[in-house]
């Protein structure tokens, strides 16, 4: 059984084709990487999976259920969580609140119960807090729970964003350049961290990454995009030696991209 299946997806923006005839299948428990030069359409893949964009053509299935064009919040409820390339934390809220917000989708009590603090809501709120604190402890941010999220150092913001995604209790976690801007030591720590949470939470991880060390080390399989087309896919070692991948990265006969 596949966890996620993308079938022949094409995405046009006006005259620009950001993604063309894209296929992908993820099995439960895998860690899969998505690489490619800037502007290759990687984030577009994420935006299509999470419902931010509706593909021009093609279909997306999650757990055998079609999710093409579904609202982002419903896709998250179905079990897909993500982080963003340019960190999108709730900057003005505290670290704890950021994680609590991600718990909100599990809340059963309605707003009247919440306003009048009925027992059912109180119980849920208490449980949410316990879960959030446990998660913060797990990712090592417990001490900083009352800090403003926007005031955290960059590396910790990345970590908080992952924690926030985990709080939605996903089956599939999408990480958009989690190691961006990190030095080799930090990147290595992050790799270990991702592997650890993947095992611990029983996740499937799909990540976009430019740090080749991280991707090659962590991924069981890798997809390579260039100009919206899949030019290679397979085991890290296979991809690394693929002629077309090398060309795409070195830009043979092509002007270098920004």
């Amino acid at each position, binding site marked *: 059984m596949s966890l996620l299946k993308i079938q022949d997806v094409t995405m046009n*923006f*006006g005259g620009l084709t950001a993604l063309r005839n894209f296929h992908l299948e993820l099995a439960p428990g895998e860690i899969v990487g998505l690489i490619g030069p800037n502007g290759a359409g990687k*984030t577009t893949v994420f*935006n299509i999976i999470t419902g*931010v*964009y509706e593909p021009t053509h093609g279909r997306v299935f999650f757990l055998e259920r079609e999710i093409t064009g579904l609202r982002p919040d419903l896709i998250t409820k179905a079990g897909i969580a993500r982080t*963003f390339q340019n960190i999108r934390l709730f900057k003005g809220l505290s670290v704890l609140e950021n994680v609590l917000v991600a718990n909100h989708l599990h809340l059963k009590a309605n707003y009247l119960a919440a306003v009048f603090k009925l027992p059912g809501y109180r119980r849920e709120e208490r449980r949410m807090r316990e879960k959030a604190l446990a998660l913060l402890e797990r990712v090592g941010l417990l001490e900083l729970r009352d800090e403003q999220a926007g005031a955290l150092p960059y590396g910790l913001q990345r970590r908080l964003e992952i924690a926030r995604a985990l709080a939605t209790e996903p089956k599939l976690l999408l990480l958009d350049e989690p190691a961006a801007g990190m030095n080799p030591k930090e990147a290595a720590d992050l790799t270990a961290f991702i592997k650890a949470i993947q095992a611990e939470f029983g996740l499937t991880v799909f990540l976009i990454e430019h740090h080749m060390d991280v991707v090659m080390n962590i991924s069981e399989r890798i997809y390579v995009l260039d100009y919206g087309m899949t030019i290679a896919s397979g085991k890290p070692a296979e991809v690394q030696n693929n002629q077309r991948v090398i060309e795409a990265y070195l830009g043979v006969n092509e002007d270098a991209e920004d």
Partner: protein
Amino acid sequence: MTLDLFLQHLSNGISLGSLYALIAIGYTMVYGILRLINFAHGDIFMMATYFAFFGIATFQIPWFITFPLVLVLTAALGMGVEAVAYRPLRDAPKISLLISAIGASFFLENLTIVLFGGVPKPFPAPKLFTDVVQVGTVAIQKLTFYIPVVTILALLGLGYLINRTKTGMAMRAVSMDYETAQVMGININRTIAFTFGLGSLLAAVGGIMWGMKFPQIQPLMGVIPGLKCFIAAVIGGIGNIAGAVIGGFILGIGEIMLVAFLPNLTGYRDAFAFVLLILILMSKPTGILGEKTAEKV
């Protein structure tokens, strides 16, 4: 309805639409650059009619001197508002900018009430424009024909300025990409100030003709036309000058025809623009000529 009557309504609609178009351009240009609803624009238009009033009625300056003077003063006023209310907030959150715009509008209105009184004043329209000509069986003011002509001339001038001059190119660059334009060495503040001046000047052209067509001026006269013209700009596709003109005509002609064909709804005339706005926003939020932009995630 006879053909004569219909043509009369149509010509009224066209001249009202021309006035809306002239004012709508100011909104659309400012929005194109600052992404801001210049709430004070309607009041700048109102001030123009007062300038004209004082020139002609109080100081007895002939109209052909007064009108150019009014254009200059109004343009200066627009630039002044920009310098005081918007320039200090370049890096502020958008909501602050909008509130400042509302404050500026409010301020101009109340200042006019204090300085010139809240009682409506008769606009001293030169007889040359208000003369009536007989067309078939109906009498139409000459002004009704002049307005579209003046509007077309103003639009041609604007088109030349924007497409053929260096300043116009700077304006287009800034509205396309603020930061890149700055890096390219365009003086942002001067370009923005110029845009405000130009928009206000067109509002003044509209204001003078408005005063002649509806010869009663008062401090709050800019509020409703201001809102409607912003709506016209949105309908046409905000940021797009041709769109503002189209929106202005749709609104002006639509409004007159509504009253002409459905006299029962005359009381709802002012609601027409808003209903149209909401319909447009629901169906095509970026307006008729607007382009869809996807937010970067």
